[in-house]
């Protein structure tokens, strides 16, 4: 070792600065979050006032409806479960640089797979039947996303386009299945046979729709967080997403990382679809997803693809949606207004999270590349 000017810092000094560094980042993050929420709330009040309604009682109603008592909380949570799983799935792919905006399609495919396994196999032992439904959904979701990821990695087919377009193919194909070969003849068109009771999660709070699926979701959240943020596999994916050139030059197999993360992402979206059937609807019908996949993409972007912030934003979003539904039921405030408000809040959050920058990034990738080398030269 040569003598050098940089003297290594004392080790406890190092730990101190590390902690203060962390604490500072937590403070700025929570500051950003409360800024967004307070700003959104003010905007909400102003908009409701402008429409000639009483703002504070209306918002209070919404909060009461979503969080007022244990039943409300359970109902709100039940609604958010599939969204949560789908959102962390999308985030997982984003983290490795893959824009899986095909979550909606993967959710439909997963729901269809779960509905088929739930209705045509069995009845059997509940745990096993549920496991089969969920595995089937995860497999089909993972397969779809994996193939699209493989096309990206090997053929260079842009996954933004391919996943986007896959949504239409899958949703319409599932609609065909539900209206023709798998249609439940006893019901109106567009629904499949009800699944056996053994393929349903047990309700843990009566009349709230909250089922034991919540335990599965908590386990999935923890597992995905570990996978993405802590594990070696997650390290490879994150490095691939952060800087594919770095990953390639240190010997990470970038293509494999891209495909793997897409498989896991699709599997999670598939499981979200399975939850729509086995923890809620009990059968497949043509509009079962109702945009959960799109919400998931949005939330994963706002959460900047980090798993914990994404889960946090799922909670915020779920409470807002649930509150909006409550407002709609008890007051004259039109439903559209609440949607506008949610959109506003999301835009504020998105601006903070730099989503606009990401979207332009996608735009740039879709634009034909001209003058690229000229700019690169100077």
């Amino acid at each position: 070792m040569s003598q050098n000017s940089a003297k290594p810092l004392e080790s406890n000094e190092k730990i101190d600065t590390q902690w203060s560094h962390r604490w500072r980042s937590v403070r700025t993050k929570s500051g950003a979050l409360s800024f967004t929420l307070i700003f959104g709330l003010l905007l909400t009040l102003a908009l409701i006032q402008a429409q000639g309604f009483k703002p504070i009682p209306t918002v209070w109603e919404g909060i009461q409806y979503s969080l007022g008592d244990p039943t409300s909380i359970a109902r709100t949570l039940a609604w958010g479960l599939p969204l949560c799983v789908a959102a962390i799935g999308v985030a997982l792919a984003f983290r490795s640089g893959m824009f899986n905006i095909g979550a909606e399609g993967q959710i439909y495919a997963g729901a269809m797979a779960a509905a088929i396994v739930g209705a045509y196999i069995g009845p059997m032992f509940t745990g096993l039947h549920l496991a089969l439904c969920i595995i089937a959904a995860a497999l089909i979701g993972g397969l779809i996303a994996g193939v699209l990821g493989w096309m990206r990695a090997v053929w260079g087919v842009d996954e933004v386009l391919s996943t986007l377009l896959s949504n239409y193919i899958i949703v319409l194909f599932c609609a065909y299945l539900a209206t023709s070969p798998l249609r439940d003849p006893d019901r109106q068109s567009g629904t499949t046979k009800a699944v056996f009771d053994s393929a349903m999660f047990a309700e843990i709070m009566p009349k709230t729709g909250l089922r034991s699926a919540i335990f599965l979701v908590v386990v999935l959240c923890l597992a995905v967080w570990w996978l993405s943020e802590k594990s070696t596999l997650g390290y490879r994916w994150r490095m691939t997403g952060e800087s594919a050139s770095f990953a390639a030059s240190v010997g990470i197999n970038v293509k494999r990382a891209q495909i793997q993360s897409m498989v896991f992402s699709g599997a999670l979206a598939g499981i979200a679809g399975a939850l729509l059937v086995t923890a809620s609807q009990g059968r497949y019908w043509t509009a079962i997803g109702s945009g959960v996949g799109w919400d998931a993409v949005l939330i994963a972007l706002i959460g900047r693809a980090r798993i914990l912030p994404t889960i946090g934003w799922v909670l915020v979003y779920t409470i807002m949606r649930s509150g909006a539904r409550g407002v709609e039921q008890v007051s004259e405030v039109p439903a559209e207004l609440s949607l506008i408000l949610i959109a506003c809040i999301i835009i504020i959050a998105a601006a903070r999270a730099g989503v606009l920058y990401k979207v332009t990034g996608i735009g740039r990738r879709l634009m034909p590349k001209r003058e690229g080398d000229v700019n690169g030269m100077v």
Partner: protein
Amino acid sequence: MSQSPTRLVTPVLEVTGVTKRFGSVVANSNISFDLKPGEIHALVGENGAGKTTLMRILYGMCVRDSGSVLIRGSEVNFRRPSEAIDQGVGMVHQHFMLVPSFTVMENLTLGIEPGKFGLFDKRAAAESVLESMERLGIEMDPQGIVGELSVASQQKLEIMKILHRGASILIMDEPTAVLTPQETMELFGLLRRLAQDGSSIIFISHKLREVFEIADRITVLRNGSTVETFLTEGTDPAEVVAAMTGRDDVNLGRMERESNLGDVVLSVNYLSCVKPAHDSGLHQVSFEVRAGEIVGIAGVEGNGQSVLAEALIGTIPLAAGDIAIQGIPLAKASVSERRNQGLAYVPEDRQLEGLPINGAVWEGLVAGRLRNWSAWRSLANAFPKSSKSWVQDLISRYSIRTPGYNVACSSLSGGNQQKLVVARELEAQPTCLVLAQPTRGVDLGAIEFIYQQIIEATNNGCAVVLISADLDEIMRLTDRVLVMYGGQIVADEVTTSTTREQLGMHMMGSVVGTGAA
């Protein structure tokens, strides 16, 4: 400065006691220097010495906290570059501010287009452009598309653009970084003509050789303050380096070491690959590197050196040819297989390839360690306790200055980022090390440290390929030099028996023996 031979005239620019803080960081502290008419004044200092901040203040890109700036005797305080331009201050940035798809003429007149009623008078524009070209002795087609010009021509255009706007004080930020020795000479000729015509030039550079060649006076900055202003004639590089670093033991000459050559480690045979967007392709490149040997690859940028590095590590596909390390063929091997064979790589663009720039320091360091982990550890913690102490150890052994391993790589200085990359690569105990521009944008202290690490590796029998655009670096460190031109190796010289001029000739494409001398 009392015995100054320069005429006793009022300076065109006088900076006195300028201080600028960013938060708790003092970027400039009580800086003073002056610029005389017709003078070329070099500003040198390590990264972070405050050169950039000072230039940004002079060019109106940031506002000083205290002190005074006088231009032709009157106090100014620019708040934006347009105000600086109005006062005749122009800046040539490291990255040119040109529109690549526009013509030379359009670029020159952009923003000050002649014509009436919002119409562009092409003829008047062409005339004014030709006039300023003639004055400067520059030949260039006014209708040429800028993106198609060479880098050197683009730089001349950038200078013309500034003069066209009436600048008489030119700030040049590392202007020679992108030029060959010959192009640098041409640029210096132009700068001298400008100075004779009465323009004053502030010349910022890392390369002391050039500073001594072009500058009348040299001002050294260190840690945000002016250390001293030297008359070029009255000083020598050692004195300037001592002022820059605060140490008087910095070695600027050849890094002497015991040459102890072993068997051939790396052999490259008839390597060819298709031209990628950013560089030339490779045509039948062959060479060998022995254990303990440092082979330099010189050449003007864009002649295949970057591609050669990428081909060696395996991030771009080969069209033909073979690469072997200790006789084991690797042309079809993946990056990780090559690395397992003992190849290590310090990439050219450390912010893109060298480290995860937005990732944490530990994420940049553990990559090599994780590569060797078996598949069943995929789901295990990527950064367990044992790795933590290993990372701590690396940080202190390679004296990487960082508050901790959890901070983002982007918060480290260039030199420390590069030490991080070198630490990771050398920790793998490579048998063959490929270095691409290892000291670009790195301060002198860190450069010396990195050189010592490289030499230590060769003492342990590592074969080193050093790709560098900096001829000084090649002359100081290597045993042999290969020169690349147009994707081929056009010369193979023993470093101690060649000269910079000879290498410069090769870099312009003259093949051994058929030189156009």
